[in-house]
């Protein structure tokens, strides 16, 4: 088992190199060894996986090794740097042709050929289906599933920190949000959620970059996120000051505040929260209520951003929240505004 894991590690280096120009140094023999190695590892992986079925700690990234023979083949095939002779050898290995007289040694080769053909067929299928229109939902869902699959391999924190540092942040946040909304939800999102709540900058970016409707869905699904989201909204709201001449709420210090969220944006956020089903809707309106009361609950525009937001949501909003207007602070969690 130990030696196998070592072999997997060494093979990962080979796999990494297969994409680069370094393969120009590979001759036919090297290609042959690489492909055979990949096939062997595939079989070994299958057996190892079966043996380790019950155990969680199956070593670093064991899950990733399932299809590496296909990956290696595809990379080498697409790599222009691979020499002509090496490439010809690769073709012979990968595509031996129609079923030869059945020899036990030939079976893995035939299996790899079949897998590569299936990959090509699936790619054709995707192209055909895309003719009917873009498939953003499906793409996002796939990214979310891959993220969750990766999280199952090992401890979430380290991986996510790494992603936050290296990966394109917008794509990462979108995938994370989609993962948290996946239906049916599995146990995996737990680690992701904890990490998100623990990282203020990630959380802030999530709240700012995602569309209002998506955040509302997230807040509805995860109570902890709901609280964090509302706190974030409160922070943003506090940074707005009323400009009497123009009659608008504007940034208090626009020059310094790069992360400024406008009044319109804030209103849009609360509108989508108010459209959500009751638990979320009530919590949001109650929060507004509490903050407004903290500011004195004067029914005059321009004195409290929260009052104005409540007014903007419409008279029905406050009433349907089951709160008398004006009323005292309801829930203790919303009674304290951040400074």
């Amino acid at each position, binding site marked *: 088992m130990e030696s196998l894991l070592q072999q997997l590690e060494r093979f990962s280096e080979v796999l990494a190199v297969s994409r680069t120009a370094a393969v120009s140094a590979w001759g036919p023999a090297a290609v042959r060894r690489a492909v055979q190695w990949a096939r062997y590892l595939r079989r070994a992986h299958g057996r190892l996986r079966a043996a380790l079925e019950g155990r969680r700690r199956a070593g670093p*990234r064991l899950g*990733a090794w399932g*299809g590496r023979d*296909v*990956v290696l*083949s*595809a*990379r080498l*095939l*697409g790599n*222009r740097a691979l020499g*002509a002779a090496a*490439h*010809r050898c690769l*073709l*012979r290995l990968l*595509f031996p*042709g*129609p079923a030869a007289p059945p020899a036990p040694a030939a079976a893995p080769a035939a299996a790899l*050929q*079949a897998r*590569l*053909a299936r*990959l*090509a*067929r*699936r*790619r*054709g*299928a*995707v*192209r*055909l*289906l*895309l*003719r*009917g*229109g*873009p*498939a*953003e*939902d*499906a*793409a996002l*869902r*796939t*990214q979310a*599933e*891959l*993220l969750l699959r*990766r999280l199952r391999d090992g401890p979430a924190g380290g991986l996510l920190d*790494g*992603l936050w540092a*290296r*990966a*394109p942040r*917008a*794509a*990462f946040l979108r*995938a994370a949000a989609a993962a948290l909304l996946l239906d049916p939800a599995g146990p995996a999102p737990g680690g992701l959620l904890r990490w998100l709540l623990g990282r203020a900058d990630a959380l802030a970016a999530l709240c700012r970059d995602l569309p209002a409707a998506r955040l509302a869905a997230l807040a509805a699904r995860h109570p902890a996120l709901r609280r964090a989201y509302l706190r974030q909204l409160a922070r943003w709201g506090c940074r707005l000051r009323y400009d009497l001449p123009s009659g608008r709420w504007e940034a208090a210090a626009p020059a310094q505040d790069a992360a400024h969220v406008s009044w319109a944006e804030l209103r849009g956020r609360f509108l989508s929260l108010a459209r959500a089903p009751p638990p979320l809707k009530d919590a949001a309106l109650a929060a507004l209520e509490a903050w407004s009361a903290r500011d004195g609950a004067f029914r005059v525009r321009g004195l409290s951003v929260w009052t104005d937001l409540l007014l903007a949501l419409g008279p029905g909003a406050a009433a349907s929240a089951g709160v008398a207007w004006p009323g005292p602070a309801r829930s203790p969690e919303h009674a304290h505004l951040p400074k």
Partner: protein
Amino acid sequence: MAQDSVDFSSHYQFWMQKLSVWEHASTSETQQDTCLHLPRFQEFLRQMYEVLKELNSSTIIERFPTIGQLLAKTCWNPFILAFDESQKILIWCLCCLINKEPQNSEESKLNSWTRGLLSQILSAFRFDTKEVELFIQSLGYTPEDYCPGLLKNMVLSLASELRENHLNGFNTQRRMVPEKIRFLSRICIPLVTLPDIEPLVEALLTYHGHETQEVLWPEFFDAVNEAFLLKKISLPTSAVVCLWLRHLPSLEKATLHLFEKLISSERNFLRRIEYFLKDSLLPEAACHPAIFRIVDEMFRYVLLETDGAPEVLAAIQVFTQCFVEALEKKNKQLKFTLKTYFPYASPSLVMVLLQHPKEIPQELWLQTLKHISEMLREIVEDQTHRSYGGPFECWFLFIHFGVWADIAAEQLVMSETESSEALLWLLAFSYNPRDGSLQRAKIMVELKAALIHLKKLFRSPTLSAKDLQAVAAESPDRDPRPALCQQLSRRLLLNFLLWAPGGHAIAWEVITLEETSGSGGGEISPAQSSCFSLLLLLALFLDHNNSQVAPTDEITHEIIGFLDQTLYRWDHLCEEAPRSRKLARELLAELHASSTSPLNVGRGCRDQDP
């Protein structure tokens, strides 16, 4: 050889032209045309590979200067790449094009170009955005991981969109437009055997829209049906039923496919027939009256064409049995009245026939049979009852439930009282519905006489073959009986052998006769000679005028069929009778072993199962 190459080059030209026309595959006409030609084009690719693999690269270019164009156009056609094994064969062809030792820059360029095409098919994958690509990479995954997941999710999303379509009612903005649904059915045609696409196929089949006309392509139904019949796709029964309800040619093809399996030159045991039938899903689908009527119609046609072949009769009987089983499984609630399944039959007759003998206590079987016989006789002999069809229609209905005729024969032999007229009539009718009443009466008289003989012998515990011969000799000389009568009498005699206590002894005496006395002459095996004796005995008993009768293959088949049918019936009715069973099984095995034609020795008999 020369002719082949001439043919091949004309095919080559044909496909070259086609590919150019399909090049953009943008209009629905070109797409439809492409889908129609996919299987033939794949054959052509296979042929081309066979030609190319014998040649080296330079010769290929010499002989087929435009081959690069042809292969490139194929690569660029997503319908072709998505179909069955075409992408694999195309890759093989491209591999043939690679030059082992490029002599000049032309050949190197060709190599390079070919590599590019191969890479195009296999490795280049375009993500939606660079951002997404980098994200996937940072996760440690590759396009090869992403693509299958993407396909799965696209299929799921489309399938659920289709399923929820009817929920959106007349909210036309959210509904999938008919054009898109039609488009989806078209692109599924090449993909139908790819397992990933199955949820979408299922959703399309079960889609019920608000349109007045069928929105899916007929070629889609054809492709799905083909794949289903060849077992290249697995679909839930409800989806298959939808397919057949929406596209009649598919149902007809499925039924013909079943017929080919059932009515082959080899003999199929009833158990095997039952397996084929259930496997085809047709009995279950026939719970829908429209499907039942069409399948029944096809059975009727085959029956008439084969002039009432016993294999077809057996198939109809087993089909009806499986069909009734399936109906009962649907919570015993008949959503449709019986009349929708049997519109030309008297409802009360159908009700009685539908009863399974298992549901009726054995003591009442005689009564039920008499009732059936009376009802049938009334319809057949009464001219004014034409609304229920003539004798043939009655008979066709009756043979669906042919188990009753078998039980009638058994009852006639086993009952102690005088042979019931009603049962005799029923038996005679079931063998030939077209007889006039006079002819039938004659047959009934013959049968009655034979039965009297048999009943005399039934009681005696010890019988010998000689006794039977003596009885046969007792009957006065008569004109040679019609074949039908012989057939019926054989049946009665066989029942006798299986049930009479003495009958067992005779049968074994006959079978072991040659074995104990050793094989005389060594020409015929003991088994063969014992069967010969048995058949000779039967022939003697029934037609003593003609003592030169040799057991024909036909008669052997008939007896085998009878034994198989009897065992099958006993299994379904949970009939105990261990001695009779044992005898029947052993007789069947002996007859198989000695039969001249190759037999389908399937799992016809249950060996050790209780």
